[in-house]
């Protein structure tokens, strides 16, 4: 409390000029002038004009008593008077100078802190959520995929990360459905906790390595009756439906297209359940979810927002 700190001010006429807001505008003009010198001359001239006008007003205000002008009809109460009157309940809005400066310091500090912190926090968090599209992957000619038999394809999902950017999918050619090739493309990522599932069955041929526009692709034909996960014992049938273990849904699948006779993998999506087999299967498709998250059933209320 100012009146606690400065009791000797009682009854003493203040010698300093009464408070004025002109210095703020003057400082703003100077700032504009300095910015204008860098940015453009008209801005600098406007800033200089503001600084001159408000500087003049400030000087006039500050020298009022020295020039012995008559005081304005309603003189603003000075700071010490404010402080003295602070305890009177009739004027609750009055704010002492120290209180105002305290608030201004805290407020400005918060603004500066926010200006510095928010972009840094944004950079920390946002790159993980922005621009996370899946690039199409060229898996090579359709002839490599015999009908009604799985081929394990390992391909470069993200370039520049070495083996880290490789993913595996189990691809089965279901033959022509309505005169269009039908493919079942199942992601190897276990939907329990994300370990790599393995096809259950013996190899169906020699592994091959081919080059496509998306880099090298390894193909391994396999006679898969289903898929199993080594980590926690999740088991799936040949359509990717869960048959045993902890997984909560069927294996994820990839959208696909065929361009110039080449199979192109698109965006992966999550699958609740698959009814039927092969080209006649009805797939309950959902947006891609992380392993372990329910996409259907009552448990999906736990995951209302998926980034």
């Amino acid at each position, binding site marked *: 409390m100012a009146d606690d700190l400065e009791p000797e001010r009682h009854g003493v006429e203040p010698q300093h000029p009464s408070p004025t807001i002109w210095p703020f505008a003057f400082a703003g003009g100077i700032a504009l002038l300095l910015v204008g010198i860098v940015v453009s001359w008209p801005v600098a001239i406007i800033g200089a004009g503001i600084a001159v006008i408000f500087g003049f007003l400030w000087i006039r205000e500050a020298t009022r008593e020295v020039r012995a002008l008559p005081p304005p009809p309603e003189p603003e109460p000075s700071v010490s008077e404010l402080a003295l009157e602070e305890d009177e309940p009739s004027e609750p809005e009055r704010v002492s100078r120290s209180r105002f400066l305290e608030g201004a310091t805290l407020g400005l500090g918060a603004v500066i802190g926010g200006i510095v912190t928010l972009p840094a926090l944004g950079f920390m968090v946002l*790159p*993980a959520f922005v621009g996370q599209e899946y690039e199409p992957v060229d898996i090579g000619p359709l002839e490599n995929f015999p009908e009604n038999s799985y081929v394990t394809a390992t391909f470069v999902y993200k370039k520049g990360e070495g083996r880290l950017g490789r993913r595996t999918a189990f691809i089965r050619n279901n033959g022509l459905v309505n005169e269009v090739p039908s493919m079942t493309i199942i992601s190897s990522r276990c939907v329990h906790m994300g370990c790599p599932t393995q096809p259950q069955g013996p190899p169906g041929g020699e592994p091959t390595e081919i080059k496509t526009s998306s880099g090298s692709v390894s193909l391994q034909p396999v006679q898969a009756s289903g898929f199993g996960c080594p980590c926690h014992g999740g088991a799936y049938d040949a359509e990717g439906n869960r048959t045993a273990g902890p997984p909560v849904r069927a294996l994820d699948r990839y959208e696909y297209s065929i361009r110039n006779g080449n199979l192109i993998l698109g965006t992966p999506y999550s699958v609740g359940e698959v009814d039927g087999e092969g080209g006649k299967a009805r797939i309950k498709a959902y947006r891609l979810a992380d*392993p372990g998250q329910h996409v259907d059933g009552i448990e999906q209320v736990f*995951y209302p927002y998926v980034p």
Partner: protein
Amino acid sequence: MIARRQKSKRRQQLEALILAPLNWLDERDPKLLGGVRYFLFRKVPRETNWFHTLGSATLTAFLVQLVTGVILAMYYKPSANEAYDSIQKITNELTLGWLVRGMHRWGASVFIILLFLHMGRVFLFGAYKYPRELNWLVGVIILTLALFEGLTGYLLPWDQTAYWATVVAININANAPILGPFLGDFLRGGTEIGENTLSIFYSFHMLVIPGGLIGLILLHLYLVVRLGVTPPPWSPAAAGYEEEDGRPARVGLLEPRPRGNGALGRPPRERTGA
């Protein structure tokens, strides 16, 4: 220094040599050494025993992790293409690298084990009770951060174990209701584990979490000194404090009187009633 008996000239010279810089400091700021002196020579209950050393042991384990971790960071390369090779180099090629990495790796387990033993001591001695609940809470946060250190450090060797363990760990986090999917994406640095994951975990492992741990451990120690060491349950002094002359404190369980004198400021206000 009080001279109890005549000292040899050589000893006097030696003492002067050691004390000269300390006296210089003491003259500038008496509280500087006063605080250290207070910390080292403060009153503790008579019945303190070896179980009371578990906290210091945990602190020592943490300091070992701190020092060895700083040294490992000089040779470790947190990028997807170099991390595994740099660990192999530290272990197999660089002189004594195997020792420092081994200290860090096994010290991590020692740290966690000591944390739990210390926590058990505090629990069984009732040292978490009034007025020390805040210190228990701080300790719980320290324990959690220490476990996060273990989780983030496990990825850094960047081998198959590390990779798949982290895949599973992140997916467990991503299964938390509501915000889980966002947490998973943040930890991965995207929808899939990649090189960003490694550097995010590295940053958390060596900057974010240790910084928080150091601050919380200082707060933990401050509260220990401020509130005093808890005597064991069989102590006649109960959970109170001994007077400076060694008599049991006048206050008991219901009305402990924290004793902080001198360098660490005023004792808290007397509490009345129960």
